[in-house]
């Protein structure tokens, strides 16, 4: 698992930063949806989408290199689709024998694999762009706007608040364990204990973390009560959106629509 527990938001004043979070969330989802609908082998459209997302990255001032690097980190899972190259029937690109088996890679398979890989890569970049240009609290507000239930959004918010606190505690627990994991100077000893013991110790770390978190939640609940909490989640009404945002929404939606039409043309 990664330890990107740094808040991904990067402060900025680009047009993308200044766009309302609600518009950004909707457009990001529309973009990913449009990407998903691109037919296999429609390379010009995939390239167009890539151009769009990279352009957005440039416009945002966050740094294309940074986003591409983070997108790459999320990619190894792509390998799950790798076998497609060999299992989708079609004209053969190359083949080789592995013992008694004849394995051949088909063009259709390669196309399929690259399609999937590119779609994933492009979608991930859009998600990264969204979170680097939008503070998380604003994303929460945006979720309310697209009708995510109030209770769920409240849970997200509290989770976010304490995520970093607990990540720090987890790191300290891991350090405390590391500090006591030494090698004796007596020769011939088996270091590290058994696998079961190690798993149990890790479980102890987890139990410790969970116990403290539950106790903490009791304190938080009391603090909330002290400020008048009665079980209802109340939030301020959503702010009006400035014209600029409506324009961006319309424009972005229009472009996605165009791309969808192109997808239709190519898919036919």
């Amino acid at each position: 698992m990664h330890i990107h527990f740094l808040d991904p938001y990067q402060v900025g004043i680009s047009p993308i930063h200044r766009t309302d979070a609600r518009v950004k969330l909707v457009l990001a989802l529309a973009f990913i949806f449009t990407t998903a609908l691109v037919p296999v082998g429609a390379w010009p459209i995939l390239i167009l989408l890539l151009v769009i997302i990279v352009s957005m990255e440039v416009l945002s001032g966050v740094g294309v290199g940074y986003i591409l690097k983070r997108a790459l980190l999320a990619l190894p899972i792509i390998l799950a689709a790798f076998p497609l190259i060999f299992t989708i029937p079609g004209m053969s690109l190359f083949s080789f024998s592995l013992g008694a088996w004849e394995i051949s890679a088909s063009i259709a398979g390669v196309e399929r694999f690259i399609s999937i890989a590119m779609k994933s890569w492009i979608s991930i970049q859009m998600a990264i762009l969204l979170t680097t240009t939008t503070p998380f609290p604003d994303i929460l507000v945006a979720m309310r706007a697209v009708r995510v239930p109030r209770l769920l959004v409240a849970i997200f918010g509290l989770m976010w608040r304490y995520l970093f606190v607990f990540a720090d505690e987890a790191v300290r627990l891991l350090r405390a364990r590391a500090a006591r994991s030494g090698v004796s100077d007596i020769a011939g000893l088996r270091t590290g204990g058994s696998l079961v013991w190690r798993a149990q110790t890790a479980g102890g770390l987890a139990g410790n973390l969970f116990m403290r978190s539950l106790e903490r939640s009791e304190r938080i609940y009391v603090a909330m009560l002290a400020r008048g909490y009665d079980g209802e989640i109340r939030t301020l009404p959503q702010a009006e959106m400035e014209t600029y945002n409506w324009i961006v929404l319309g424009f972005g939606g229009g472009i996605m629509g165009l791309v969808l039409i192109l997808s239709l043309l190519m898919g036919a």
Partner: protein
Amino acid sequence: MLLSVEALHIPDGFLSLPVSLIAWVISITLVGYALRRVGQDLGERQVPMMGVLAAAIFAGQMLNFAVAGGTSGHLIGAALATILMGPWAAILIMTSVVSIQALIFQDGGLLVLGANIFNMAIVGVAVSYMVYQTILKITGNTRKGVLIGGFSAAWLSLEIAALSVALQLVLSGTSPARLAIPAMASVHALIGIGEGLITVGALTFLLSTRPDLVRLGKTNPAGSRIVWVLGFLLAAAIAIAAPLASTRPDGLEWVAMQGGFIDQAKAPLFQIIPDYLFPGVANEAAATIAAGLLGLVIVFGVGVGVAYSRRNRQASGR
């Protein structure tokens, strides 16, 4: 291939639209129901408790132990959450964890989030609950029962969730059944042992320090029979479908191809529209040219935008 815990988080682009949509519908329905149920069980404490435990699970996934040769085992936490908080709260907690993982850390896609929620928050929790409750009933509410129940719940829920992922990939035509299903099943059978052991370690710790917390999950919140049944059905269905699929891939791939047929069935409908828009012109060529032009326009627009904002920045003295 699918060797890490991340393997359970499916990225965007990997699932076909029908599969993704169905998963969304199921997830939204069940999560919606959980939201209503939780109000009745936990009362006002619900928000701080669930939010904080969600954060703890998220952070807890960093806690690892060395397995062999550089690999390590981790905690996923669905079983533990279910045991400590009961099934409905656990569904919401895991939904939060999975959603934020997808949104902020790109662990799993956004469009396929419905499927990821289904696999980890719903299947993971329901199967955990079913196994844990069953074992507790058999062994009585003893310490041994808790530990055995914890281990089994963690192991089986992970295994079933992994198979669920595999089935979704196969149904979408992203991975061949012959490979995906045995691979996911075997790898996660091993990972599941690690998850089970950590879960037992955590429960051991909690039983010594705060045994009252472990009792929380033992109470039978309203409607949890539904979860038990759900867990049982899901486990049974997936456990049966998966081996069938891998030994007789034709059946499942036939279904996948039907999905493909659905895509192709759209084609005749779409034939009309393009012909109408660009009568007589080869559609692919038209689309390619249009794409190129659109790309140029966008790049030009961005160039202008960047120059403009740079000018603004200079003007305001940055």
